[in-house]
């Protein structure tokens, strides 16, 4: 599945839900698919987006929080899956765009291109709402369900990397305030 198209379909399902994207190509594709004030683009702390999403979901149970993670990023923070499974925030939707590569550093293979299975790791961590999807139709169905039914949801989406080159404006402090204002936290 094409990630840019998957993000376009996801955004069509959303209203005002916050979306937090991991650094690199997920940010670029989210920006191109549809910039909105509820998007938070991250620039560093690789691997942290699942945990940022957990903190936001716990802080704001009134919001459905969507996290767009990467396979290389999540492999840096697998422990977060156990923490999420333990705290079980029903309003967290954790989507991993599993391309099997470290795209932003030049396309080197991650371990999900080999033996590692993130969905199995998620189940092993104790998550019970785990979906593996491989095409746009499956992705859209899983996303739609995860936005209305109690989670936490963990959706592993096998995707191809895309060649999006449009760069998100690098203004992270401004973006923080814009995001907080959009979700009513300021």
């Amino acid at each position, binding site marked *: 599945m094409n990630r840019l198209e998957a993000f376009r379909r996801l955004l069509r399902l959303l209203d005002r839900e916050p979306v937090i994207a991991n650094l690199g190509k997920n940010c670029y594709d989210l920006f191109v698919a549809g910039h909105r004030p509820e998007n938070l683009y991250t620039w*560093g*702390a690789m691997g942290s987006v699942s945990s940022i999403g957990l903190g936001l979901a716990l802080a704001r149970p009134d919001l459905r929080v969507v996290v767009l993670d990467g396979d290389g990023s999540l492999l840096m923070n697998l422990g977060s899956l156990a923490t999420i499974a333990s705290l079980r925030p029903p309003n967290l939707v954790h989507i991993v765009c599993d391309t099997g590569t470290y795209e932003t550093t030049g396309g080197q293979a991650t371990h999900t291109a080999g033996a590692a299975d993130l969905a199995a790791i998620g189940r092993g961590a104790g998550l019970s709402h785990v979906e593996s999807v491989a095409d746009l139709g499956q992705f859209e169905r899983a996303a739609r369900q995860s936005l209305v039914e109690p989670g936490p949801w963990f959706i592993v989406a096998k995707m191809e990397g895309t060649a999006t080159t449009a760069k998100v404006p690098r203004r992270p402090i401004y973006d923080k305030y814009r995001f907080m204002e959009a979700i009513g936290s300021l």
Partner: protein
Amino acid sequence: MDWSAVMAETLKANGYDMVAYVPDEVADRLLELLRQEDSITMVSATREEEAVAVLCGAYLGGKRGALVMQGSGLGNSINAICGLAIGIQIPFLIIISERGRLGELNPVQTPMGRAAPRILEALGIQAFRIDKAEDVAATVEGATKLAFASLLPVALILSTALSGGKTWR
């Protein structure tokens, strides 16, 4: 005076909504007391960097957070402190129980004990040692004001003089 009880009470009085931590013997009673507070969400993290990111997410949601960890966890926390907290100006309180300093018994805890003060200084994180239980309340209150005025993490160091340090089990 029971420093853990004073600190738990002061954190609550200063509006902390979330405490993310990696379990620690010195902070065990503090964490147990905080767990009894309905107004505080407790997050047991698998490593310190994860705890930093959880607190940053909570801040984006309008909540005030504190990180509780051993000094040895500082190394694990730095990437998120730099690339997230300092990078986009997110304040929280870092409560560090000293390791590798006065009274340390574990040889491999001593390198971080030597390095920690200069690591914090290099990061621009203001750190305040607490040696006496009677200083806990004022220091927590002052550090809270400073963190949320500077929009940066501020550290409190629980010295072994205050806590008695870790016992050898």
